[in-house]
């Protein structure tokens, strides 16, 4: 019996387990997932909670709904990974030996890494929306907020879903319009990047979009600390921005257990070969989803594309020990731009997002880097696809590697 152990039953762990269920012979293989949290969160939905577009019931389901025999699910925390002896130690004392280990423990927010952030104002004038409780606390505050200066700050990159802060800003612009108070709100986006987004073309187009919505970008802003009493954020080069309401995307880090087990970099992300997602230090460990240091977008869509290709090559790898460079870093995401519209970007390791059209078989083209109502509906439809198709390891009619068809060269 060969054993596969999957650490983390979030987006990536669940998808890959259900893929294994389709391709492996369970007389010869055993697949075990380990996760302490019985709830599966649809994280993209957290974005909509502060604006009461979604509620809790839209974004949670029991993990057991998606993980059924012959898959095994152990509800416990992984305490240590002993890669030299091919086994993991769980909080409940269990020791699990493995032939292949899949690390899918994702990344989480760490507000304690920024001085001042947790000193008395967390949940009062300082908020986030990257977890269910933070998005709900922000919803409660927005309900009665009288206006003032809203500052949205990304502490450092990489973060999961790098477009989510921009979407949050554009949805708040829309929300404040609907509440009839946009004229009483000033919106500032303080980002460590040199512009609205990472890649030049998208950065320029998104920058223009923000400007047209009267949203100010403060670029190259690397936060050093929050001054919760004076209600201001201070950067390493001593710029100060005052706020009435601070919405932060705190430092994103991989799981502690990665660092403790000596498998991670300075952010507890596991170094991998970006084209195969195999751990650099261990040929029988693969890192899927957000947990690796691959320079791909930390997004569910990226996890899904890479897992499609990973499972295609897995059995060959077991037999021959060889892997082609199968993954190109393909990512695509819908970006909510407010007022019932959205846009879409599609890119990979080498090709930056460009305007154009994205061919979606059976449904029709989605516009890339241009606003449309259809893209907004695409994003809302994505929740249904996530629960019913993606997590269950079924195929989407999308190519896992990026295509240049329909993209405009600018």
């Amino acid at each position, binding site marked *: 019996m060969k054993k596969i152990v999957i650490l983390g039953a979030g987006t990536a762990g669940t998808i890959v387990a259900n893929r294994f269920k389709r391709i492996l012979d369970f007389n010869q293989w055993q697949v075990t997932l380990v996760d302490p949290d019985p709830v599966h969160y649809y994280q993209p939905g957290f974005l909509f909670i502060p604006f009461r577009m979604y509620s809790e019931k839209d974004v949670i389901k029991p993990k057991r709904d998606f993980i059924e025999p012959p898959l095994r699910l152990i509800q416990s925390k992984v305490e240590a990974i002993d890669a030299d002896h091919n086994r993991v130690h769980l909080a409940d004392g269990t020791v699990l030996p493995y032939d292949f280990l899949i690390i899918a423990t994702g990344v989480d927010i760490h507000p304690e890494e920024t001085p001042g952030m947790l000193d008395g104002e967390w949940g009062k004038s300082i908020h986030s929306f990257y977890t269910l409780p933070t998005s709900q606390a922000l919803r409660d505050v927005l309900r009665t907020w009288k206006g003032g200066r809203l500052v949205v700050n990304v502490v450092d990159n990489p973060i999961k879903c790098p477009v989510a802060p921009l979407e949050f800003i554009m949805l708040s612009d829309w929300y404040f319009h609907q509440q009839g108070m946009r004229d009483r709100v000033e919106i500032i986006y303080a980002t460590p990047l040199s512009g609205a987004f990472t890649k*030049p073309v998208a950065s320029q187009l998104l920058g223009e979009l923000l400007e047209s919505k009267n949203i100010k970008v403060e670029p*190259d802003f690397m936060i050093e600390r929050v001054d919760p009493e004076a209600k201001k954020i201070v950067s390493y080069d001593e710029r100060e921005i005052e706020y009435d309401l601070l919405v932060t995307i705190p430092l994103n880090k991989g799981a502690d257990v990665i660092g403790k087990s000596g498998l991670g970099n300075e952010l507890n992300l596991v170094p991998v070969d970006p084209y195969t997602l195999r751990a650099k230090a261990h040929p029988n460990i693969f890192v899927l989803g957000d947990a690796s240091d691959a320079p791909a977008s930390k997004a569910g869509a990226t996890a899904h594309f890479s897992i499609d290709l990973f499972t295609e090559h897995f059995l060959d790898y077991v037999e021959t020990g060889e892997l082609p460079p199968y993954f190109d870093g393909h990512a695509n995401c819908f970006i909510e731009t407010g007022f019932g519209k959205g846009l879409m970007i599609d890119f990979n390791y080498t090709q930056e997002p460009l305007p154009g059209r994205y061919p979606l078989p059976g449904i029709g083209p989605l516009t890339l880097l241009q606003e449309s109502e259809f893209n907004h509906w695409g994003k809302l439809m994505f929740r249904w696809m996530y629960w019913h198709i993606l997590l269950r390891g079924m195929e989407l009619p999308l190519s896992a590697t990026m295509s240049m068809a329909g993209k405009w060269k600018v």
Partner: protein
Amino acid sequence: MPTRVIAGKTVEVDAEGFMTNPNEWNEEIAVELAKEEGINELTPEHWKVINFCRQSASANGKAPTLRAITSGTGISTKELFALFPKGPAKKVAKIAGLGKPEGCV
């Protein structure tokens, strides 16, 4: 790939002006690029950071992140911002003839 002449030498650069071949780099180029970034004089502290980044990039195949620089050199983030104003990781990578740092997708 576009090229440009820096300190008398023709080198390959990308659309954002980052050199694409670290082997084409030399110290005169660094001095020149630093001036373009508004740093008129490269002090021993600057060189300590530049040399660390060159070493780290040749070992890992990519320019180090800000966090990797602070833990590798013992120089604090605050000092790095004083040495290389605005985005230190990006600025050093440019001056040290390394590609644009990844990790911000």
